[in-house]
C-alpha cells in the first residue's frame, strides 16, 4: 500500500523526472520487485479472494526466479504480524525460503492443491529460524500463522501461470470510494449539536415569553404568596412532635433500592453466573 503512495506522490511531484526515477522509487519501496512493471497501471496479480483482502505484506511477482524469500513476522497488520510478500507469484519448482524476523510465529497451510504436499512449519519459532519448501505442483496455496491468524497474518502463494488473477484497484479510487459514506456520517454528527442548540434556544425564548406574560397578569393583582401568608396559622411543636414522614419515606425507598441492587449484584450477577473457580 505504501508502495502505491510512494509512486503516486512521485508521479505528482513531477513527471519530468522521467522513467529512471520511477524505477528507482519502485525498488526503494518496502516490497521491492516487479510490482506494476510499467506506467500503464497495475498488472494483474493472483486473486486469493477474501483470503488476502485487508492483509498487509504486499505482493511480489517472482516468476522467472528459482529461489525467493517470504519474511515471517514482517511489519504490518498492526505490529510484526505480516508475511512479506503476503501475495507471491512463482513458477513451479521455485524454492521459497520462509525467514522468521520476529518471534512466536508458525506457518500452517489453509488450502492447497490436492497433491501440493506443503505442510508449513507447525512449531512456533522465533526470529532467525527459517525453512525451505519447493513448490512443484501448480495452483493456489493459502497459509497462515496460527497465533496471529485473527490479526490477519495470512499469506498466499500462486504457482504457475494458470491461476485466477485480478487487477488491483488503483489506490486513489479505492480511497475516494471508501471516503464517501463516512463523510455523510460526519455531516450528521456535526449537524446534531446545531439542532440541539436550536432546541435549547427555542426553550429559552419560550420560557422568557411565559415569564413576561405572568408578570403582566400579576400587575395590579395581590400577590398570591402574601395572601397565603396572611391566612396561615402558626403552631408550636416540641422536638418529637414533628414527624418528617416525607423524609422517612424517601429514606425507606433508598434502603429498599440498595437491598434490591445488593441482591442483584451479589447473588444474581456474581454467584449465579455459571461455572466458578472452586480450587
Amino acid at each position: 500500500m505504501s508502495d502505491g503512495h510512494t509512486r503516486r506522490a512521485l508521479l505528482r511531484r513531477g513527471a519530468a523526472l522521467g522513467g529512471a526515477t520511477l524505477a528507482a522509487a519502485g525498488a526503494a519501496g518496502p516490497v521491492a520487485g516487479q510490482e506494476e512493471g510499467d506506467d500503464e497501471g497495475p498488472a494483474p496479480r493472483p486473486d486469493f479472494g477474501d483470503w488476502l483482502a485487508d492483509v498487509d505484506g504486499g505482493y511480489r511477482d517472482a516468476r522467472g526466479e528459482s529461489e525467493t524469500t517470504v519474511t515471517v513476522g514482517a511489519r504490518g497488520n498492526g505490529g510484526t504480524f505480516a508475511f512479506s510478500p503476503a501475495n507471491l507469484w512463482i513458477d513451479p519448482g521455485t524454492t521459497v525460503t520462509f525467514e522468521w524476523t520476529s518471534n512466536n510465529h508458525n506457518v500452517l497451510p489453509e488450502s492447497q492443491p490436492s497433491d501440493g504436499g506443503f505442510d508449513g512449519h507447525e512449531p512456533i519459532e522465533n526470529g532467525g529460524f527459517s525453512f525451505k519448501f519447493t513448490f512443484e505442483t501448480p495452483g493456489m496455496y493459502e497459509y497462515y500463522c496460527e497465533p496471529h491468524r485473527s490479526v490477519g497474518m495470512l499469506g498466499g502463494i500462486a504457482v504457475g501461470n494458470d491461476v485466477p488473477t485480478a487487477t488491483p484497484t488503483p489506490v486513489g479510487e479505492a480511497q475516494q470510494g471508501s471516503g464517501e459514506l463516512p463523510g455523510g456520517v460526519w455531516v450528521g454528527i456535526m449537524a446534531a449539536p446545531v439542532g440541539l442548540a436550536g432546541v435549547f434556544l427555542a426553550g429559552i425564548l419560550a420560557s422568557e415569553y411565559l415569564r413576561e406574560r405572568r408578570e403582566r397578569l400579576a400587575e395590579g393583582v395581590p400577590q398570591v404568596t402574601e395572601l397565603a401568608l396572611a391566612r396561615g396559622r402558626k403552631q408550636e411543636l416540641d422536638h418529637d412532635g414533628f414527624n418528617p414522614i416525607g423524609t422517612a419515606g424517601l429514606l425507606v425507598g433508598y434502603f429498599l433500592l440498595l437491598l434490591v441492587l445488593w441482591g442483584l449484584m451479589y447473588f444474581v450477577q456474581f454467584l449465579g453466573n455459571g461455572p466458578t473457580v472452586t480450587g
Partner: protein
Amino acid sequence: MEIHRYERAWLAASLVLIVLFIGTVAYGALGPSVAMVDAEGGTVDPAALDDHPRFSDPGVYQTGEDEYAAYVIARRFAFQPGSTDPIRVPEGSTVTFYITSPDVVHGFSLAGTNVNTMVLPGQVTKVTVDFEETGEYGVVCHEYCGEAHHEMAGTLVVVPSGEFDLPEERDVSGGGS
C-alpha cells in the same frame, strides 16, 4: 443531644446495612464454592515450554473419572488451545486449568462467569472449575498485551458427556477410567 426517633431508626438501619455488605464480601472470599487464585500452580521456564511434559502439547488431559487437566498457553495473541480450536471439556466434569505465558502478562477469563485470572510468564496459574451444564463460553484476554490484544480471544465448549472423546494418550489418569 436529642436525636429524633426517626433519625435513630435510619442510623440503625444503615449500620445493619454496612454489616450486611461486609458480611457479603467475607462470604464471597471464604464461603463455599468460591475460591481465590493463588501460587499453587508453581513456576515454569517460559522459554522452554516445548520441553515441558504437558505444555509442549497443550490441551485437555484426563486425570481421573470426570476429572480433567487443561493446559493452555496464552501467547500474543492467541490461546493455545482456544483460539484456533476450542477448548473442549465434557459436562459434569471438574477441570483444572494450568495456564501460562511464554511472553507477556495475559488474562484468562470465561466471559460472563467468575472464572477470571491473570496469566504470568514463568508462573503456572492453576484454577479448578466445575462444569455442570453444556454450553459455550468466550475466552478473553483482559490484560493489555500488545497491538492485537483486542483480537486475543477463544472459545471453551462444554460438550455432552456422550460426545466427548479424548485420544487414549491423553488419558493420564492411570488404570483407565
